[in-house]
Protein backbone atom coordinates (compact mmCIF):
# COMPACT_ATOMS: atom_id res chain seq x y z
CA UNK A 1 0.00 0.00 0.00
CA UNK A 2 1.39 3.39 -1.02
CA UNK A 3 1.33 5.90 1.84
CA UNK A 4 -1.61 8.28 1.62
CA UNK A 5 -1.11 11.80 2.89
CA UNK A 6 -3.72 12.40 5.59
CA UNK A 7 -4.53 15.84 6.99
CA UNK A 8 -4.47 16.20 10.75
CA UNK A 9 -8.02 17.21 11.69
CA UNK A 10 -7.45 17.65 15.39
CA UNK A 11 -4.67 17.22 17.91
CA UNK A 12 -5.62 16.25 21.46
CA UNK A 13 -3.09 16.62 24.27
CA UNK A 14 -3.70 13.45 26.27
CA UNK A 15 -0.92 13.81 28.84
CA UNK A 16 2.07 16.16 29.03
CA UNK A 17 4.02 13.80 26.75
CA UNK A 18 1.26 12.17 24.69
CA UNK A 19 -0.92 13.54 21.90
CA UNK A 20 -3.60 12.01 19.72
CA UNK A 21 -3.61 13.00 16.06
CA UNK A 22 -7.05 12.63 14.45
CA UNK A 23 -6.71 12.07 10.72
CA UNK A 24 -8.78 13.03 7.72
CA UNK A 25 -8.77 9.41 6.58
CA UNK A 26 -11.32 6.61 6.78
CA UNK A 27 -10.09 3.20 7.85
CA UNK A 28 -11.68 0.00 9.09
CA UNK A 29 -9.02 -0.48 11.74
CA UNK A 30 -9.74 -3.07 14.44
CA UNK A 31 -8.40 -2.82 18.00
CA UNK A 32 -4.71 -3.77 17.96
CA UNK A 33 -4.06 -2.99 14.31
CA UNK A 34 -1.45 -0.42 13.45
CA UNK A 35 -0.34 1.90 10.66
CA UNK A 36 3.02 3.15 9.44
CA UNK A 37 3.22 6.94 9.88
CA UNK A 38 5.51 8.74 7.45
CA UNK A 39 7.11 12.14 7.86
CA UNK A 40 8.66 12.86 4.46
CA UNK A 41 12.47 13.11 4.63
CA UNK A 42 12.38 12.11 8.31
CA UNK A 43 11.34 8.50 8.89
CA UNK A 44 8.41 6.08 8.95
CA UNK A 45 7.34 4.32 12.17
CA UNK A 46 4.55 2.03 13.36
CA UNK A 47 1.75 3.37 15.58
CA UNK A 48 -1.33 1.68 16.91
CA UNK A 49 -4.55 3.01 15.46
CA UNK A 50 -6.46 4.46 18.42
CA UNK A 51 -9.60 5.21 16.43
CA UNK A 52 -11.36 3.76 13.41
CA UNK A 53 -13.81 4.84 10.69
CA UNK A 54 -13.81 8.61 10.42
CA UNK A 55 -12.33 8.82 13.93
CA UNK A 56 -9.10 7.24 12.71
CA UNK A 57 -6.24 8.45 14.88
CA UNK A 58 -2.82 7.65 16.24
CA UNK A 59 -1.62 8.43 19.74
CA UNK A 60 2.01 9.36 20.08
CA UNK A 61 4.36 9.73 22.98
CA UNK A 62 7.18 12.22 22.51
CA UNK A 63 10.33 10.15 22.87
CA UNK A 64 13.00 10.56 20.24
CA UNK A 65 13.75 12.16 16.89
CA UNK A 66 10.65 11.04 15.04
CA UNK A 67 8.09 11.76 17.70
CA UNK A 68 9.67 15.18 18.37
CA UNK A 69 9.02 16.00 14.72
CA UNK A 70 5.48 14.70 15.07
CA UNK A 71 4.97 17.10 17.98
CA UNK A 72 5.96 20.03 15.74
CA UNK A 73 2.94 19.31 13.52
CA UNK A 74 -0.14 21.53 13.70
CA UNK A 75 -3.75 20.86 12.80
CA UNK A 76 -4.03 21.12 9.02
CA UNK A 77 -0.59 19.58 8.41
CA UNK A 78 -0.40 16.15 6.81
CA UNK A 79 1.35 12.89 7.50
CA UNK A 80 1.69 9.80 5.32
CA UNK A 81 -0.21 6.71 6.41
CA UNK A 82 0.13 3.08 5.29
CA UNK A 83 -2.25 0.64 6.93
CA UNK A 84 -4.12 -0.75 8.77
CA UNK A 85 -1.73 -3.65 9.18
CA UNK A 86 -1.49 -6.69 11.38
CA UNK A 87 -3.84 -8.89 13.31
CA UNK A 88 -5.68 -7.14 16.12
CA UNK A 89 -7.04 -8.55 19.35
CA UNK A 90 -9.29 -11.58 19.22
CA UNK A 91 -12.05 -10.70 21.69
CA UNK A 92 -14.96 -12.61 20.24
CA UNK A 93 -15.83 -14.85 23.18
CA UNK A 94 -14.70 -12.80 26.15
CA UNK A 95 -17.22 -12.21 28.96
CA UNK A 96 -14.90 -11.37 31.81
CA UNK A 97 -11.65 -9.72 30.82
CA UNK A 98 -8.73 -7.77 32.16
CA UNK A 99 -6.61 -5.14 30.48
CA UNK A 100 -3.09 -4.31 31.62
CA UNK A 101 -1.55 -1.19 30.12
CA UNK A 102 1.87 0.24 30.83
CA UNK A 103 2.59 3.80 29.68
CA UNK A 104 1.87 4.32 26.03
CA UNK A 105 0.65 0.70 26.02
CA UNK A 106 -2.79 2.05 26.79
CA UNK A 107 -2.97 3.19 23.15
CA UNK A 108 -3.99 -0.13 21.50
CA UNK A 109 -6.09 -1.09 24.54
CA UNK A 110 -8.43 1.92 24.44
CA UNK A 111 -10.30 0.88 21.28
CA UNK A 112 -10.39 -2.67 22.61
CA UNK A 113 -11.83 -1.56 25.96
CA UNK A 114 -14.51 0.55 24.28
CA UNK A 115 -15.38 -2.37 22.02
CA UNK A 116 -15.62 -4.75 24.99
CA UNK A 117 -17.80 -2.25 26.85
CA UNK A 118 -20.22 -2.17 23.87
CA UNK A 119 -20.47 -5.94 24.18
CA UNK A 120 -21.17 -5.70 27.91
CA UNK A 121 -17.99 -7.52 28.83
CA UNK A 122 -17.12 -7.36 32.48
CA UNK A 123 -13.83 -5.47 32.40
CA UNK A 124 -11.04 -4.69 34.83
CA UNK A 125 -8.39 -2.21 33.72
CA UNK A 126 -4.95 -1.90 35.23
CA UNK A 127 -3.32 1.30 34.02
CA UNK A 128 0.24 2.12 34.94
CA UNK A 129 2.42 5.16 34.26
CA UNK A 130 5.51 6.95 35.49
CA UNK A 131 3.46 9.59 37.22
CA UNK A 132 -0.17 10.62 37.73
CA UNK A 133 -0.64 13.04 34.87
CA UNK A 134 0.93 10.56 32.42
CA UNK A 135 -1.87 8.02 32.82
CA UNK A 136 -3.02 7.71 29.22
CA UNK A 137 -6.76 7.58 28.44
CA UNK A 138 -7.57 7.42 32.17
CA UNK A 139 -11.02 9.00 31.79
CA UNK A 140 -12.09 7.09 28.71
CA UNK A 141 -10.88 3.80 30.15
CA UNK A 142 -12.78 4.48 33.38
CA UNK A 143 -16.00 4.46 31.38
CA UNK A 144 -15.35 0.94 30.15
CA UNK A 145 -14.92 -0.93 33.44
CA UNK A 146 -13.36 -0.97 36.85
CA UNK A 147 -10.02 0.83 36.79
CA UNK A 148 -6.89 0.34 38.90
CA UNK A 149 -4.14 2.90 38.57
CA UNK A 150 -0.49 2.46 39.49
CA UNK A 151 2.30 5.02 39.21
CA UNK A 152 6.05 4.76 39.72
CA UNK A 153 6.05 7.77 42.00
CA UNK A 154 2.76 7.08 43.73
CA UNK A 155 1.34 10.43 42.65
CA UNK A 156 -1.85 8.69 41.56
CA UNK A 157 -3.37 5.37 42.48
CA UNK A 158 -1.10 2.75 43.93
CA UNK A 159 2.68 3.22 43.97
CA UNK A 160 4.28 0.35 42.13
CA UNK A 161 3.78 -1.98 39.23
CA UNK A 162 0.69 -2.86 37.21
CA UNK A 163 1.67 -6.48 37.56
CA UNK A 164 1.27 -6.44 41.34
CA UNK A 165 -2.34 -5.37 40.83
CA UNK A 166 -2.81 -7.99 38.13
CA UNK A 167 -1.51 -10.67 40.48
CA UNK A 168 -4.05 -9.72 43.16
CA UNK A 169 -6.85 -9.70 40.59
CA UNK A 170 -5.87 -13.11 39.22
CA UNK A 171 -5.85 -14.50 42.74
CA UNK A 172 -9.49 -13.49 43.21
CA UNK A 173 -10.98 -13.79 39.78
CA UNK A 174 -11.05 -15.89 36.61
CA UNK A 175 -10.63 -13.94 33.35
CA UNK A 176 -11.45 -15.32 29.89
CA UNK A 177 -8.59 -13.23 28.67
CA UNK A 178 -5.95 -10.81 29.87
CA UNK A 179 -5.01 -8.22 27.25
CA UNK A 180 -1.69 -6.48 27.70
CA UNK A 181 0.49 -3.84 26.16
CA UNK A 182 3.49 -2.00 27.51
CA UNK A 183 7.22 -2.38 28.02
CA UNK A 184 8.34 -5.93 27.24
CA UNK A 185 9.67 -6.67 30.77
CA UNK A 186 6.16 -5.85 32.07
CA UNK A 187 4.62 -8.13 29.45
CA UNK A 188 6.95 -10.96 30.42
CA UNK A 189 5.66 -10.67 33.96
CA UNK A 190 2.02 -10.47 32.73
CA UNK A 191 2.54 -13.67 30.79
CA UNK A 192 4.17 -15.45 33.74
CA UNK A 193 1.28 -14.49 35.99
CA UNK A 194 -1.32 -15.60 33.46
CA UNK A 195 0.44 -18.93 33.05
CA UNK A 196 0.65 -19.36 36.79
CA UNK A 197 -3.06 -18.66 37.24
CA UNK A 198 -4.13 -20.49 34.11
CA UNK A 199 -5.49 -17.42 32.31
CA UNK A 200 -5.25 -16.97 28.57
CA UNK A 201 -3.57 -13.78 27.52
CA UNK A 202 -3.08 -11.68 24.40
CA UNK A 203 -0.10 -9.37 24.31
CA UNK A 204 0.62 -6.55 21.91
CA UNK A 205 4.33 -6.78 21.13
CA UNK A 206 6.72 -4.30 19.56
CA UNK A 207 9.74 -4.61 17.30
CA UNK A 208 11.52 -2.31 14.86
CA UNK A 209 9.75 -2.51 11.50
CA UNK A 210 10.45 -1.86 7.86
CA UNK A 211 7.90 -3.37 5.48
CA UNK A 212 5.00 -3.86 7.95
CA UNK A 213 3.62 -6.52 5.60
CA UNK A 214 5.64 -9.59 6.46
CA UNK A 215 8.36 -9.82 3.87
CA UNK A 216 11.50 -8.13 5.13
CA UNK A 217 11.92 -10.26 8.25
CA UNK A 218 12.97 -7.25 10.35
CA UNK A 219 10.37 -7.62 13.10
CA UNK A 220 10.94 -11.31 13.78
CA UNK A 221 10.44 -12.95 17.17
CA UNK A 222 11.69 -16.43 16.38
CA UNK A 223 9.68 -17.50 13.32
CA UNK A 224 6.85 -15.03 14.03
CA UNK A 225 6.58 -11.65 12.37
CA UNK A 226 5.24 -8.96 14.68
CA UNK A 227 3.86 -6.95 11.74
CA UNK A 228 1.97 -9.77 10.07
CA UNK A 229 1.39 -12.57 12.59
CA UNK A 230 0.99 -9.95 15.35
CA UNK A 231 1.36 -7.41 16.78
CA UNK A 232 -1.05 -9.22 19.10
CA UNK A 233 0.00 -12.73 20.09
CA UNK A 234 -1.81 -15.34 22.13
CA UNK A 235 -0.58 -17.51 24.99
CA UNK A 236 -0.32 -20.53 22.68
CA UNK A 237 2.20 -18.62 20.54
CA UNK A 238 3.99 -16.87 23.37
CA UNK A 239 4.60 -20.18 25.15
CA UNK A 240 6.74 -21.27 22.19
CA UNK A 241 8.67 -18.02 21.85
CA UNK A 242 12.32 -18.20 22.81
CA UNK A 243 13.12 -14.54 21.97
CA UNK A 244 10.19 -12.95 23.82
CA UNK A 245 11.52 -10.76 26.61
CA UNK A 246 15.09 -11.55 25.57
CA UNK A 247 16.10 -10.66 22.03
CA UNK A 248 15.25 -8.28 19.22
CA UNK A 249 16.83 -7.39 15.88
CA UNK A 250 18.72 -4.23 15.13
CA UNK A 251 18.18 -2.55 11.77
CA UNK A 252 21.08 -4.60 10.42
CA UNK A 253 19.09 -7.75 11.34
CA UNK A 254 21.62 -8.53 14.04
CA UNK A 255 19.85 -10.21 16.93
CA UNK A 256 20.78 -8.68 20.29
CA UNK A 257 19.55 -8.62 23.87
CA UNK A 258 16.61 -6.33 24.65
CA UNK A 259 19.02 -4.15 26.64
CA UNK A 260 21.29 -3.66 23.65
CA UNK A 261 18.22 -3.12 21.45
CA UNK A 262 16.94 -0.38 23.78
CA UNK A 263 20.36 1.28 23.78
CA UNK A 264 20.34 1.28 19.99
CA UNK A 265 16.84 2.77 19.96
CA UNK A 266 18.15 5.61 22.13
CA UNK A 267 20.90 6.51 19.66
Amino acid sequence: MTPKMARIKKIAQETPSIRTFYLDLETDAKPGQFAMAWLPRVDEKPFTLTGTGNETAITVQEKGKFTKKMFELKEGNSIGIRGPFGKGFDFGGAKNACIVAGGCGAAPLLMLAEELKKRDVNLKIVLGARTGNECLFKERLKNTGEIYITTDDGSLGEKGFTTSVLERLLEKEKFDCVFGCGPEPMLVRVFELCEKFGAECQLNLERFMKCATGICGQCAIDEWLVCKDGPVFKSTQIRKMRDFGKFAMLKSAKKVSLQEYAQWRQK
Partner: protein
Amino acid sequence: MLETEFCKVKLGNPTVLASGILGTSAELLIRAAENGAGAVTIKSIGPREREGHNNPTIFEWEHGLINAVGLSSEGYKEMEDVWEALKKCPVPVIASIYGANVQEFIEVAENVAKQKPAIVEANISCPNSEKHGQVFGCNIDASAEVISAVKKAVGEIPLIAKLTPQAPNIAEIAKACEAAGADAICAINTVAGMVINIEARKPVLHFKKGGLSGPAVKPVAVKCIWEIYEAVKIPILGVGGVSSGRDAIELMQAGASAIGIGSGVHFKGIDVFKKVCSEMEEWMNENGFANVKELVGIAHE
Protein backbone atom coordinates in the same frame (compact mmCIF):
# COMPACT_ATOMS: atom_id res chain seq x y z
CA MET B 1 6.37 -34.44 -10.39
CA LEU B 2 8.01 -31.24 -9.10
CA GLU B 3 11.26 -32.86 -7.89
CA THR B 4 14.22 -31.41 -9.70
CA GLU B 5 17.82 -30.49 -9.20
CA PHE B 6 19.71 -27.28 -9.48
CA CYS B 7 23.52 -27.22 -9.64
CA LYS B 8 23.39 -30.90 -8.70
CA VAL B 9 21.52 -30.01 -5.50
CA LYS B 10 18.28 -31.99 -5.17
CA LEU B 11 15.14 -29.90 -4.67
CA GLY B 12 11.71 -31.22 -3.65
CA ASN B 13 10.24 -28.55 -5.90
CA PRO B 14 11.66 -25.71 -7.98
CA THR B 15 10.49 -22.80 -5.78
CA VAL B 16 13.19 -20.93 -3.90
CA LEU B 17 12.81 -18.18 -1.30
CA ALA B 18 14.62 -15.23 -2.92
CA SER B 19 17.30 -13.29 -1.12
CA GLY B 20 16.21 -10.35 1.02
CA ILE B 21 12.80 -11.78 1.78
CA LEU B 22 12.32 -13.13 5.31
CA GLY B 23 15.94 -14.27 5.20
CA THR B 24 17.03 -12.39 8.32
CA SER B 25 16.88 -15.38 10.63
CA ALA B 26 17.22 -19.14 10.59
CA GLU B 27 13.74 -19.48 12.11
CA LEU B 28 12.14 -17.57 9.25
CA LEU B 29 14.09 -19.51 6.62
CA ILE B 30 12.89 -22.74 8.19
CA ARG B 31 9.34 -21.40 8.27
CA ALA B 32 9.55 -20.70 4.52
CA ALA B 33 10.79 -24.25 4.00
CA GLU B 34 7.89 -25.58 6.05
CA ASN B 35 5.59 -23.54 3.85
CA GLY B 36 6.81 -25.34 0.78
CA ALA B 37 9.96 -23.63 -0.47
CA GLY B 38 12.23 -26.11 -2.26
CA ALA B 39 15.27 -24.11 -1.12
CA VAL B 40 15.78 -20.92 0.86
CA THR B 41 18.19 -18.02 0.48
CA ILE B 42 19.72 -16.09 3.36
CA LYS B 43 19.44 -12.32 3.05
CA SER B 44 22.59 -11.07 1.30
CA ILE B 45 25.54 -11.21 3.70
CA GLY B 46 28.07 -8.39 3.60
CA PRO B 47 31.58 -7.90 4.98
CA ARG B 48 30.44 -6.02 8.08
CA GLU B 49 27.38 -4.86 9.98
CA ARG B 50 25.34 -2.45 7.92
CA GLU B 51 22.08 -0.77 8.87
CA GLY B 52 20.86 -0.04 5.39
CA HIS B 53 18.69 2.95 4.54
CA ASN B 54 16.13 4.78 6.65
CA ASN B 55 12.41 4.08 6.48
CA PRO B 56 10.36 4.07 4.34
CA THR B 57 12.36 1.19 2.90
CA ILE B 58 9.64 -0.99 1.34
CA PHE B 59 6.08 -0.43 0.24
CA GLU B 60 3.52 -1.60 -2.28
CA TRP B 61 2.70 0.61 -5.27
CA GLU B 62 -0.04 -0.09 -7.79
CA HIS B 63 1.69 -2.88 -9.69
CA GLY B 64 4.27 -4.31 -7.35
CA LEU B 65 6.68 -3.50 -4.56
CA ILE B 66 9.53 -1.04 -4.40
CA ASN B 67 12.34 -1.27 -1.86
CA ALA B 68 15.51 0.44 -0.82
CA VAL B 69 16.42 -1.65 2.18
CA GLY B 70 20.02 -0.88 1.36
CA LEU B 71 21.66 -4.26 1.88
CA SER B 72 21.31 -4.22 5.64
CA SER B 73 23.36 -7.08 7.05
CA GLU B 74 24.71 -8.18 10.39
CA GLY B 75 27.95 -9.05 8.58
CA TYR B 76 29.37 -12.55 8.12
CA LYS B 77 31.21 -12.43 11.44
CA GLU B 78 28.10 -12.30 13.58
CA MET B 79 26.28 -15.26 12.12
CA GLU B 80 27.46 -18.29 14.09
CA ASP B 81 24.08 -18.68 15.78
CA VAL B 82 22.27 -18.44 12.43
CA TRP B 83 24.42 -21.15 10.87
CA GLU B 84 23.99 -23.31 13.92
CA ALA B 85 20.20 -22.98 13.81
CA LEU B 86 20.14 -23.54 10.05
CA LYS B 87 21.41 -27.08 10.58
CA LYS B 88 17.75 -27.90 11.23
CA CYS B 89 16.62 -26.44 7.91
CA PRO B 90 14.86 -29.24 5.99
CA VAL B 91 15.76 -27.86 2.53
CA PRO B 92 18.99 -26.68 0.88
CA VAL B 93 20.24 -23.28 2.04
CA ILE B 94 21.61 -20.73 -0.41
CA ALA B 95 23.92 -18.08 1.02
CA SER B 96 23.71 -14.78 -0.83
CA ILE B 97 26.75 -12.54 -0.49
CA TYR B 98 27.84 -9.05 -1.53
CA GLY B 99 30.78 -6.70 -1.28
CA ALA B 100 31.73 -3.24 -2.46
CA ASN B 101 34.86 -4.51 -4.18
CA VAL B 102 36.44 -7.78 -5.20
CA GLN B 103 38.43 -8.06 -1.99
CA GLU B 104 35.28 -7.77 0.13
CA PHE B 105 33.54 -10.39 -2.00
CA ILE B 106 36.47 -12.78 -1.45
CA GLU B 107 36.50 -12.12 2.29
CA VAL B 108 32.78 -12.82 2.65
CA ALA B 109 32.86 -15.80 0.27
CA GLU B 110 35.73 -17.51 2.08
CA ASN B 111 34.07 -17.18 5.44
CA VAL B 112 30.60 -18.12 4.28
CA ALA B 113 32.02 -21.15 2.45
CA LYS B 114 33.32 -22.50 5.76
CA GLN B 115 29.70 -22.95 6.85
CA LYS B 116 29.07 -25.21 3.86
CA PRO B 117 25.83 -23.79 2.49
CA ALA B 118 24.39 -25.91 -0.34
CA ILE B 119 24.97 -23.06 -2.80
CA VAL B 120 26.52 -19.60 -2.70
CA GLU B 121 24.88 -16.75 -4.64
CA ALA B 122 26.98 -13.69 -5.47
CA ASN B 123 24.75 -10.62 -5.68
CA ILE B 124 26.64 -8.60 -8.28
CA SER B 125 23.73 -6.20 -8.70
CA CYS B 126 25.17 -3.80 -6.13
CA PRO B 127 27.31 -0.73 -6.74
CA ASN B 128 31.02 -1.26 -7.14
CA SER B 129 32.70 1.34 -4.99
CA GLU B 130 36.00 1.04 -6.86
CA LYS B 131 34.56 1.65 -10.30
CA HIS B 132 32.90 4.95 -9.39
CA GLY B 133 29.78 3.39 -8.03
CA GLN B 134 28.86 1.70 -11.29
CA VAL B 135 27.02 -1.54 -10.69
CA PHE B 136 29.26 -4.63 -11.04
CA GLY B 137 26.62 -6.50 -12.97
CA CYS B 138 26.43 -3.81 -15.67
CA ASN B 139 30.04 -4.31 -16.63
CA ILE B 140 31.32 -7.47 -18.29
CA ASP B 141 34.87 -7.33 -16.93
CA ALA B 142 33.87 -6.37 -13.41
CA SER B 143 31.33 -9.22 -13.33
CA ALA B 144 33.85 -11.76 -14.56
CA GLU B 145 36.46 -10.58 -12.09
CA VAL B 146 34.14 -10.93 -9.09
CA ILE B 147 32.79 -14.27 -10.15
CA SER B 148 36.15 -15.85 -10.80
CA ALA B 149 37.45 -14.58 -7.46
CA VAL B 150 34.37 -15.80 -5.58
CA LYS B 151 34.51 -19.16 -7.35
CA LYS B 152 38.07 -19.65 -6.12
CA ALA B 153 36.97 -18.73 -2.62
CA VAL B 154 34.00 -21.11 -2.46
CA GLY B 155 35.77 -24.06 -4.10
CA GLU B 156 33.45 -27.02 -4.53
CA ILE B 157 30.30 -25.20 -3.47
CA PRO B 158 28.15 -24.35 -6.51
CA LEU B 159 28.13 -20.62 -7.27
CA ILE B 160 25.22 -18.61 -8.69
CA ALA B 161 25.82 -15.18 -10.21
CA LYS B 162 22.81 -12.94 -9.54
CA LEU B 163 22.41 -10.39 -12.31
CA THR B 164 20.70 -7.05 -12.63
CA PRO B 165 18.26 -6.30 -15.47
CA GLN B 166 19.83 -2.82 -15.65
CA ALA B 167 22.62 -4.31 -17.77
CA PRO B 168 21.81 -3.43 -21.39
CA ASN B 169 23.49 -6.70 -22.40
CA ILE B 170 22.53 -9.18 -19.70
CA ALA B 171 23.27 -12.22 -21.91
CA GLU B 172 26.86 -11.03 -22.38
CA ILE B 173 27.23 -10.60 -18.62
CA ALA B 174 25.84 -14.11 -18.11
CA LYS B 175 28.31 -15.54 -20.61
CA ALA B 176 31.18 -13.78 -18.92
CA CYS B 177 30.06 -15.17 -15.54
CA GLU B 178 29.80 -18.67 -16.99
CA ALA B 179 33.30 -18.39 -18.42
CA ALA B 180 34.52 -17.08 -15.06
CA GLY B 181 33.29 -20.21 -13.32
CA ALA B 182 29.71 -19.56 -12.27
CA ASP B 183 27.70 -22.77 -11.95
CA ALA B 184 24.38 -21.00 -12.49
CA ILE B 185 22.83 -17.62 -13.19
CA CYS B 186 20.11 -15.96 -11.13
CA ALA B 187 17.99 -13.38 -12.97
CA ILE B 188 16.67 -10.92 -12.12
CA ASN B 189 17.34 -8.59 -9.26
CA THR B 190 15.03 -5.56 -8.97
CA VAL B 191 14.44 -2.92 -11.66
CA ALA B 192 15.41 0.64 -10.68
CA GLY B 193 12.47 2.95 -10.09
CA MET B 194 11.00 5.73 -7.98
CA VAL B 195 7.57 6.60 -6.61
CA ILE B 196 6.69 10.17 -5.65
CA ASN B 197 3.80 11.02 -3.38
CA ILE B 198 2.48 14.13 -5.07
CA GLU B 199 0.76 15.49 -1.97
CA ALA B 200 3.94 15.09 0.07
CA ARG B 201 5.86 16.36 -3.00
CA LYS B 202 8.62 13.91 -2.16
CA PRO B 203 9.84 10.48 -3.20
CA VAL B 204 8.36 7.97 -0.77
CA LEU B 205 11.49 5.89 -0.19
CA HIS B 206 13.87 7.67 2.12
CA PHE B 207 16.70 6.68 -0.26
CA LYS B 208 14.48 8.11 -3.04
CA LYS B 209 15.35 5.48 -5.67
CA GLY B 210 14.62 1.84 -5.13
CA GLY B 211 14.17 -1.51 -6.79
CA LEU B 212 10.88 -2.59 -8.35
CA SER B 213 9.75 -6.17 -7.87
CA GLY B 214 6.54 -8.14 -8.13
CA PRO B 215 3.96 -8.37 -10.94
CA ALA B 216 5.17 -5.35 -12.96
CA VAL B 217 8.66 -6.77 -13.48
CA LYS B 218 7.69 -10.26 -14.63
CA PRO B 219 8.02 -9.48 -18.36
CA VAL B 220 11.47 -8.01 -17.70
CA ALA B 221 12.46 -11.22 -15.92
CA VAL B 222 11.06 -13.39 -18.74
CA LYS B 223 13.01 -11.42 -21.35
CA CYS B 224 16.27 -11.62 -19.37
CA ILE B 225 15.86 -15.34 -18.71
CA TRP B 226 15.09 -15.90 -22.40
CA GLU B 227 18.26 -14.11 -23.51
CA ILE B 228 20.44 -15.78 -20.91
CA TYR B 229 19.05 -19.22 -21.80
CA GLU B 230 20.13 -18.71 -25.39
CA ALA B 231 23.59 -17.56 -24.32
CA VAL B 232 24.74 -20.01 -21.63
CA LYS B 233 24.67 -23.72 -20.82
CA ILE B 234 24.51 -23.43 -17.02
CA PRO B 235 21.09 -23.48 -15.34
CA ILE B 236 19.10 -20.36 -14.51
CA LEU B 237 17.32 -19.49 -11.27
CA GLY B 238 14.48 -17.34 -12.59
CA VAL B 239 13.21 -14.62 -10.26
CA GLY B 240 10.83 -11.73 -10.80
CA GLY B 241 7.10 -11.31 -10.36
CA VAL B 242 6.20 -14.88 -9.49
CA SER B 243 3.19 -15.34 -7.26
CA SER B 244 1.25 -18.08 -9.04
CA GLY B 245 1.90 -21.42 -10.68
CA ARG B 246 1.30 -19.83 -14.09
CA ASP B 247 3.97 -17.20 -13.38
CA ALA B 248 6.46 -19.89 -12.38
CA ILE B 249 5.69 -21.92 -15.50
CA GLU B 250 6.17 -18.84 -17.69
CA LEU B 251 9.66 -18.26 -16.30
CA MET B 252 10.50 -21.95 -16.66
CA GLN B 253 9.31 -22.02 -20.27
CA ALA B 254 11.61 -19.04 -20.87
CA GLY B 255 14.51 -21.10 -19.57
CA ALA B 256 14.59 -21.14 -15.78
CA SER B 257 15.36 -24.43 -14.03
CA ALA B 258 14.20 -23.16 -10.65
CA ILE B 259 12.09 -20.20 -9.55
CA GLY B 260 12.83 -17.60 -6.90
CA ILE B 261 9.93 -15.98 -5.10
CA GLY B 262 10.28 -12.70 -3.26
CA SER B 263 7.42 -10.23 -3.50
CA GLY B 264 5.04 -13.16 -3.90
CA VAL B 265 5.35 -13.59 -0.11
CA HIS B 266 3.79 -10.13 0.26
CA PHE B 267 1.08 -10.71 -2.31
CA LYS B 268 0.09 -14.27 -1.38
CA GLY B 269 1.46 -14.83 2.11
CA ILE B 270 4.27 -17.06 3.32
CA ASP B 271 2.52 -20.18 1.99
CA VAL B 272 2.98 -18.82 -1.54
CA PHE B 273 5.41 -21.70 -2.12
CA LYS B 274 2.80 -24.36 -1.43
CA LYS B 275 0.24 -22.47 -3.52
CA VAL B 276 2.58 -22.05 -6.48
CA CYS B 277 3.54 -25.73 -6.33
CA SER B 278 -0.01 -27.00 -6.27
CA GLU B 279 -1.00 -24.64 -9.09
CA MET B 280 1.97 -25.90 -11.10
CA GLU B 281 0.96 -29.51 -10.53
CA GLU B 282 -2.60 -28.77 -11.56
CA TRP B 283 -1.50 -27.06 -14.76
CA MET B 284 0.98 -29.81 -15.56
CA ASN B 285 -1.71 -32.45 -15.12
CA GLU B 286 -4.08 -30.57 -17.42
CA ASN B 287 -1.39 -30.00 -20.00
CA GLY B 288 0.28 -33.39 -20.03
CA PHE B 289 3.58 -32.76 -18.30
CA ALA B 290 4.95 -35.49 -16.05
CA ASN B 291 8.01 -33.72 -14.71
CA VAL B 292 8.78 -30.10 -14.14
CA LYS B 293 12.11 -30.44 -15.94
CA GLU B 294 10.21 -30.82 -19.23
CA LEU B 295 9.09 -27.22 -18.92
CA VAL B 296 12.56 -25.71 -18.92
CA GLY B 297 13.06 -23.61 -22.04
CA ILE B 298 10.28 -25.20 -24.11
CA ALA B 299 9.13 -21.82 -25.43
CA HIS B 300 12.37 -21.71 -27.41
CA GLU B 301 11.50 -24.77 -29.47
